């Protein structure tokens, strides 16, 4: 099989899967193995792609064989490949978890097709080399996520969904505007061609364009001060869905920021990077302070997402290879870990039907496995050794200090301290103390074993991220080096494989 088929297959396979699943919507029992199969296939394809490019190669597929700059190109470079692999793993794990969690027949019917469409959208977002196609992939992802978000709650609670939909719709429209401006100024929407042409633009215009993209992708990524919609909408979805959102959706925004800011616009030295650094710092601190104020586990974790997005932006804003590598490594760590924490929330919900710190106590006695899982993920997310979060944080700290940006390193350390404090709030409030009796009548337990298995699976992944930090960091560095070279220069290479 030609490697150039890998990027399109990564998108098309889940889409075909979605079509099949939609046809099977009356047969939930049949849907489950098909859905698992599709996600596994995606994972295998992703791994094949990564194997092809991890040491610096690029697989560039010109869809329909139209010349670059005219047609759409899919670019499997190291960054995209790494993220697609991590995303596929996470998606598969959450899918298994969801099999145990969903109980409403209506949810089940449409869950699988939508989930696969979401997978396809995420893969496309990571792989596309075309700005407008990126917009389309955003829309696919968002549309699927809107519906997933409202699938379970939508018939009862509308408001959070409306916040989510309206904000993101506005964001998408602004992206469309940005694409229009970019096309007006450069006559292309291909990122590789664009990266060659931005240099010809008057500096004020390229600055304005890149800042516009910061606003657009910043909204998707939930950076300060554009984050407020996230904690209002994420926690309302069923946990499995929140888990995917938390792990992956904001990451797409971050990814797009990295892609456009680092690769397309590069270091212009126009103050945009300094601005991003401030954004990063504020995002970290404000996000985690928001978490401290909450007393619901799901909301605390949702605020954490914001804070941790700040870390990734910090890596980007340093605009150095080490910084970008740190950001990539942080994403690799954060996607499974954050997802896993929400899966733990799902385990708690399955037992107690609530995630309020005030209503649940003593899980350490009544559910030690859940407590253990939470402890590991929480420590990892707080950046404590020896877990993956520490390695990721270390990368960023190293990069920041090497750049002489002491204050942002300080801010990141304060943020991780506060993360830890807010995690202890969850720990103290929910896991310690006298166990809360389970509700009467007890909630149905079926599927709990499957859910726990899925969560343990993600645990294995995060531990693997930590153990394999060395090779992963090397890969992230390769990806970062690739990012620092404007895509245009890799165009001529037309590298397939190595």
């Amino acid at each position, binding site marked *: 099989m030609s490697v150039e088929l890998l990027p399109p297959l990564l998108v098309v396979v889940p889409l075909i899967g979605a079509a099949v699943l939609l046809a099977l919507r009356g047969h939930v029992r049949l849907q489950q193995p098909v859905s698992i199969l599709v996600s596994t296939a995606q994972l295998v394809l992703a791994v094949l792609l990564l194997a092809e490019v991890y040491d610096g190669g690029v697989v560039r597929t010109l869809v329909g064989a139209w010349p670059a700059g005219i047609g759409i190109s899919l670019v499997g470079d190291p960054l995209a490949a790494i993220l697609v692999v991590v995303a596929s793993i996470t998606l598969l794990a959450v899918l298994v978890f969801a099999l145990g969690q969903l109980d409403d027949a209506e949810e089940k019917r449409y869950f699988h097709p939508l989930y696969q469409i979401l997978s396809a959208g995420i893969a496309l977002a990571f792989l596309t080399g075309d700005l407008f196609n990126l917009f389309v992939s955003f829309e696919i992802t968002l*549309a699927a996520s809107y519906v997933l978000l409202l699938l379970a709650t939508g018939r009862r609670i509308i408001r*959070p969904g409306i916040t989510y939909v*309206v904000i993101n*719709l506005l964001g998408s429209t602004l992206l*469309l505007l940005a694409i229009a401006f970019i096309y007006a100024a450069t006559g292309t929407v291909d990122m590789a061609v664009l990266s060659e042409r931005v240099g010809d633009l008057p500096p004020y215009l390229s600055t304005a364009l890149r800042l516009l993209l910061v606003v657009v992708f910043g909204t998707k990524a939930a950076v300060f001060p554009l984050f407020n919609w996230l904690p209002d909408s994420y926690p309302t979805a069923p946990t499995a869905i929140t888990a995917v959102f938390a792990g992956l959706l904001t990451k797409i925004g971050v990814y797009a920021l990295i892609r456009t800011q680092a690769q397309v616009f590069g270091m212009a030295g126009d103050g945009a990077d300094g601005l991003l650094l401030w954004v990063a710092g504020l995002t970290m601190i404000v996000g985690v302070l928001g978490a401290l104020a909450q007393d619901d586990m799901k909301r605390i974790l949702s605020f954490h997402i914001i804070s941790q997005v700040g870390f990734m932006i910090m890596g980007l804003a340093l605009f150095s290879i080490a910084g970008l590598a740190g950001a990539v490594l942080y994403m690799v760590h954060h996607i499974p870990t954050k997802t896993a924490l929400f899966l733990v929330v799902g385990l708690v919900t399955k037992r107690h039907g609530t995630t309020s710190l005030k209503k649940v106590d003593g899980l350490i006695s009544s559910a030690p496995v859940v407590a253990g899982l939470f402890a590991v993920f929480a420590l990892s997310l707080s950046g404590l050794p020896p877990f993956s979060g520490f390695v990721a944080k270390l990368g960023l700290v190293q990069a920041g200090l090497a750049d002489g940006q002491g204050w942002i390193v300080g801010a990141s350390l304060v943020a991780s301290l506060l993360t830890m404090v807010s995690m202890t709030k969850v720990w103290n409030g929910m896991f310690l103390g006298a166990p809360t009796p389970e509700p009467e009548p007890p909630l149905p337990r079926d599927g709990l074993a499957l859910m726990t298995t899925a969560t343990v699976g993600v645990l294995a992944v995060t531990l693997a991220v930590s153990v394999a930090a060395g090779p992963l960091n090397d890969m992230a560095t390769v990806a970062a080096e690739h990012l620092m070279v404007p895509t245009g220069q890799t165009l001529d290479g037309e590298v397939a494989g190595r």
Partner: protein
Amino acid sequence: MIIEAVLAGVLIAVGVAQLLQRTLTRIVIGVALIGQGANLVLLVAGGPPAAPPLVGAEGPISDPLPQALALTAIVITFAMLGFLLALAWRAAKLTGEDRVEDDIEDRRVAHAREKGSTESRPQLPRVGTTPKDDR
């Protein structure tokens, strides 16, 4: 060109003004208007007006790419708008009106501040008394 740019600006401005209200219908209209404005900008981005992009047209043709992009965008915006309207319909069914209310949990957390600062601080252990339930 200037005219269309200004028109797009006006459409988006009017859209924004409506987006910032609480009535859901207004918000949806706002989103729709902003979308129209964006499509217009996309069209303008292709350069000045010219003959339709058909093979064999006489004279210069207008840039077909932005048109294709705008076409895709129009349909996507329409799909999203349809979904938003379904939401609005459901909201109207549930609440009987189309207001977007504030987030309850945010309100509660904000409200907890006043109370929290005076009431919820726990009492500290007094010197010399061992909590006896620790073993």
